């Protein structure tokens, strides 16, 4: 994933994984391939955790809270990081809102 600044997503939106994305788990990371774009991405464990929670039902805020719960953090502690992660996934075409 790029380190470029990505726009903050609206935390009430529900990001959804690209329907045609193929996930190749590799330990706690994964390669995700999008056939339509003929593009592959390496997701580290944090990005993969966020990606897997992008199911079109959870909001960005929900995803942030679930990640925080998993890691034992305060509920909103990870929201900025999760928001950036979702934005990067969106920019890569791996998730969308709609």
């Amino acid at each position, binding site marked *: 994933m790029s380190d470029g600044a990505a726009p903050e997503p609206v935390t009430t939106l529900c990001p959804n994984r690209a329907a045609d994305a*193929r996930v*190749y788990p*590799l*330990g706690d*990371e*994964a*390669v995700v*391939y999008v*056939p339509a774009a*003929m593009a*592959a*991405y*390496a*997701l*580290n464990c944090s990005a993969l955790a966020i990606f897997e929670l992008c199911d079109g039902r959870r909001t960005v805020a929900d995803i942030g809270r679930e990640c925080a719960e998993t890691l034992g953090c305060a509920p909103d502690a990870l929201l900025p990081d999760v928001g950036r992660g979702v934005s990067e996934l969106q920019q890569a075409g791996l998730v969308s809102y709609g």
Partner: protein
Amino acid sequence: MQTAQQRALLIAFGDREVVVRSDDSAVLGALERIFTMMRAPVSAGRTVGELEVCREDGRYAVRGITDVTLEDGSLADVVRHVRYSAIQLLMDARPDLLWFHAGAAALRGRAVLFPGPPGGGKSSLVTSLCARGWSYLSDEIAPLDPLSDTVLPFPQAPAIREYPGREMPPEWVRMANKEELRLRPDRVCREPTPIAALVRPSYRRAARADLSVGSPATTALHLLEQCGNFPSHRETAVSYVCALVQRVPGFSVCFSDGEAAADVVARRLEDCL
């Protein structure tokens, strides 16, 4: 039509051959040096392409089955284009293989692949390993057979860029600033060799040679980025590479000096090979 003065160079990869004809000794001489370890004395395989280099109005021209647009028609220009055309013809003749921008060297019958873009230090690293007793498979183009997990030899003459130790601007990649090195024939691997490790070379000015373990996902992505015929394989390539990185370890080596990098790689990979 072949004229009386024309000579032919047969470039062989397995049982596939590309024929280059020319009446210009400078062109053929340069190509013979590049492909000296891939030359076939007589045709023994299937010709997959023919290229003819001639001189017209003081400029070189290439005729053949590939579209070639020379930039300036100079000797360096025509040699570079014929070389890439010959490689492309051989790649096209073996679409079953995954072709990587990678150097490759072997020790004790086990191959290490060094995938990376031009200017990343592949040639420097591979030739330094060969000076330490490793066998040479390629310094730039490495075909991998996904059915057997073997690296096939593509032993064009290794070439080291001039001005080692300098950061290389992108345009240098296309310049004729490489010098071919001679390898002892017994240092050249002639057989498909099982792949045992993937090492991503990364040249950085003034960097101390250091080898680090790469995660499978980043190793896979880097390898896929260097797959020259990815559009022909797409998801099959992704699937294969993701399986491969679970079978063989991946590393990255950062360095500014090929000799020091070869020492580190040889020492650290001793147990994998």
